[in-house]
């Protein structure tokens, strides 16, 4: 494990530098996120109208939730599913398998390099801009920031695991485009990015509690907005850890199966 460690660091570093080379694309990205946050900001303000609280949220918590959810998304979001599916389709995965490191961890590290790049050059300046433009409330306690950072790291892990699973599907079907698109919609909708889960009807909340998506946005953003405090913070964190462990199992099994049946077309 430890000799590999420096290799992993390099994978992250190289991806980070690669992103840095094409940074122009990301300036417009900051504006796009600001546009989206702005749209939902005004929308939620109008929805609240004269109501003090809705769906267990105050207005201030809601606007903060919107801002922090989108900024967290900049960090955890990646296209690993598409990258893996493409490498399987064009056969370059065969070359990757000959390398002396585990392919899936290699992909995760690349995703992390990308995520760290966006966190530093995108989420942080973005959050400053958003704080200046809109009325939001940042946590004042230092430990809330720390636990939030750990939690969005787990958001990244869980989201990437879901991406690995979707991407690996390309081993079994020739075209997994549809699945990848469904996944994207499911993550945006069921993770609480578009609507916090406490707004869903009771039966839907019951189902979503048993799905991994809430661990991506809803749980960390709830901690950040101060809706979850005290011991409940650790419960939320434990839910994330459990999902990370649970999702590792199908990834391992499918990966073993996939390696056995890999057929590379052409040459």
């Amino acid at each position, binding site marked *: 494990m430890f000799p590999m460690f420096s290799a992993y660091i390099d994978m992250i570093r190289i991806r980070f530098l690669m992103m840095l080379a094409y940074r122009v694309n990301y300036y417009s990205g900051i504006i796009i996120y600001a546009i989206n946050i702005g*749209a939902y900001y005004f929308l939620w303000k109008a*929805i609240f109208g004269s109501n003090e609280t809705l769906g267990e949220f105050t207005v201030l918590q809601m606007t903060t939730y919107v801002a922090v959810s989108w900024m967290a998304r900049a960090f955890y979001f990646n296209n690993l599913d598409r990258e893996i599916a493409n490498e399987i389709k064009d056969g370059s995965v065969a070359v990757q398998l000959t390398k002396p490191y585990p392919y899936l961890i290699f992909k995760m590290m690349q995703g992390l390099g990308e995520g760290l790049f966006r966190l530093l050059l995108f989420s942080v300046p973005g959050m400053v801009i958003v704080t200046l433009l809109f009325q939001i409330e940042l946590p004042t306690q230092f430990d809330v920031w720390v636990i939030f950072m750990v939690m969005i790291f787990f958001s990244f892990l869980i989201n990437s695991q879901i991406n690995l699973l979707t991407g690996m599907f390309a081993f079994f079907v020739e075209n997994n485009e549809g699945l990848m698109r469904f996944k994207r919609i499911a993550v945006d909708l069921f993770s609480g990015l578009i609507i916090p889960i406490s*707004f869903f009807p009771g039966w839907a909340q019951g189902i979503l509690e048993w799905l991994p998506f809430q661990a991506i946005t809803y749980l960390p953003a709830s901690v950040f907005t101060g809706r979850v405090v005290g011991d409940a913070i650790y419960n939320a964190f434990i839910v994330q850890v459990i999902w990370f462990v649970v999702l590792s199992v199908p990834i391992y099994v499918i990966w073993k199966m996939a390696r056995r049946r890999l057929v590379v077309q052409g040459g």
Partner: protein
Amino acid sequence: MYYASIFTDYFKTYLKTRMTYRADFLIEVVTDLLFQLTNLFFILVVFLHTSSLGGWSIYEMLFIYGYFMIPYGIFTCFLNLWSFNERYIVKGEMDRILTRPAHNLVQLVLENMDPASLFGSITGFIIMGYAWLQLDVGFVWYDPFVLVLMVIGSVLIYAGVYITITSLSFFSDSPTGITPMIWNIQNYGRYPVDIYNKVIKFTLTWLLPFAFVGVYPASFFLDKDISQGFALLTPVVGIVFFSIGFVVWNVGVNRYKGAGS
């Protein structure tokens, strides 16, 4: 007639290419629609908790939402210019277009048309019709004609704005990232403009007139005083923005020098 026969030929080619991979085609249509319907889901969930959004009821919101989908579907069907820069400028395919007799913009429209996105328009029409039945706003004989006029106006606004932006590729071939930015702004038009602040409202009315692809024209049928005056401006704004787009485009084409080699 000349263009009609070209259209038929391109349409046949489209059908042949898409029908080769039927399952993919179906999945693409369904997921595109689902993606648009996430906003419908948003409206429905929000109205579980409140009865009015800035003075608009759920059926009024659904009406605007349904209307918004109609011109959007028509626009994406005919003006699919997302990858214009890469495909036509960087790879130099514009050379091929310019050597042919039909007008270059018409060829681009036909080469990239995507009639599948009209499913979105149909869905929008059904949602709007449903909301119309639930609302007590009445129905006048000229409403269908006004609707057609409004939709044409809205489509022309989309066309004008996006043709102008796409024309920028003629002046600078580096990617600017401006198209996705505009695409995100246009979603503001789906909701009543009065909920935004003055700057945004002004922008959506006069600079990037996306209020005219959703809330303004829709409010004509909803008898909303606040924006009904603007509603009738929709076709005018459409013509103005389309003309700007067309002029900028032609200036751009004249500057086009090819990608070399």
